[in-house]
């Protein structure tokens, strides 16, 4: 029930409590309420849960996580060869 799926905001309408948008999940587009992510702009990624964006995906944090994973992979590879 806590499933939330990341998607890209491709349309924004309304404002405040009625801020809605269209979110693209790899080609499938759905309406979502954007009231809880007031700073989100077109092209941003959000986590959508039961029709509501509950969080904006922080691109910089995502990049840092992927870099940390790449670092672990590189180290393990080097140790495997050693």
């Amino acid at each position, binding site marked *: *029930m*806590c*499933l*939330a*799926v*990341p998607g*890209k905001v491709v349309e924004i309408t309304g404002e405040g*409590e009625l801020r809605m948008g269209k979110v693209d*999940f*790899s080609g499938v587009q759905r309406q979502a*309420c954007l*009231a*809880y*992510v*007031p700073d989100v702009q077109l092209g941003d*990624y959000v*986590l959508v*849960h*039961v*029709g*509501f964006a*509950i*969080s904006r*995906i*922080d*691109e910089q*944090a*995502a990049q*840092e*996580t*992927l870099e*940390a*994973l*790449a670092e*672990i*992979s590189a*180290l*393990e*590879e080097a*140790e*495997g060869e050693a």
Partner: protein
Amino acid sequence: MRHVDEYRDPAAVRAVVERIRATVTRPWTLMEVCGGQTHSILKFGMDELLPGNVRLVHGPGCPVCVTPLEKIDRAIAIASRPDTTFCSFGDMLRVPGSRDDLLKVKARGGDVRIVYSPLDALRLARQHPDRKVVFFAVGFETTAPANAMAVHRARAEGLSNFSVLVAHVLVPPALEALLSAEGVEIQALLAPGHVCAVTGYRDYEPVAARYRVPIVVTGFEPLDLLKGVLAAVEQLERGEARVENQYPRAVVRDGNPAALRMIDDVFVVSGRSWRGLGEIPRSGYALSPKYAAHDAEAVFDVSGLTVKEPEECRAGLVLQGRLRPSDCPEFGTRCTPEHPLGATMVSSEGACAAYFQYRRAPREATG
């Protein structure tokens, strides 16, 4: 899919597993709290990838599973009324009540609808002013902003035919209940990432300090989960016990302020009975008095309907991480998704459902 596929890379998975193997010097028991995480772990076989001295036990993070029988029976009583359109997430329909489930009410001609969002139920209330539209507001903190918005909009639009049957539960008080129980074996917790996307993780800090357990905010993809496990065992090996965020692309310490304001407006914290865990103080939400006109339990006067929990289902032990579903004598025999003894066998987040789906047949037979 962006922000998903990157966290499923097999080579990186092997590398993080190797790092975990190299880090661990002693046996450790970790609990992943969220049922969505349990399903990911079993689906991707991550428990089988981990070294034998890192044991994952499954937590109570399935709101459908912990909803008391009494609440299910009240839902069934309301849904059976001819003037009512009863809306619910799909998970809830097959959960057994004392005699029936919501699906049987629907089969008998009851107007029971599966909705994707509480806003769908609100739309039905607008379209059918002659019907009493009820939404079964089940969930953890993740779902609370959505359910709160539906109630808030109903009041703002004067939709007096819309009400909610509230069955909301809160994670931190349940963790305290688990950690303070006798004979507890849990040494670290993977905290539910999407709950924390809403609430942040300040409330977890006193829990980590009081019970001396590392708590790692963790996502749902294989690499998110493995990074959570790695961070937890690193803390355990170093003798640390603090809250650490391994899901920073979705979670910040203070959570989502706009969502939390709406929750504060619509709900008040209340005591809650958890199926399998019993009464836990301040572990749920009730509607705040100004929204009382939208409280289905008052509107339909079902508060007199009380029942006891059944004894044959051992879901309570499963939800506390004390019984592995496949070790239950009823598992896969008297209890199946078609004929469940309890909710953990039918919810999409239930641990028993996950074992039935992914671990029932021998590995070689499933390929």
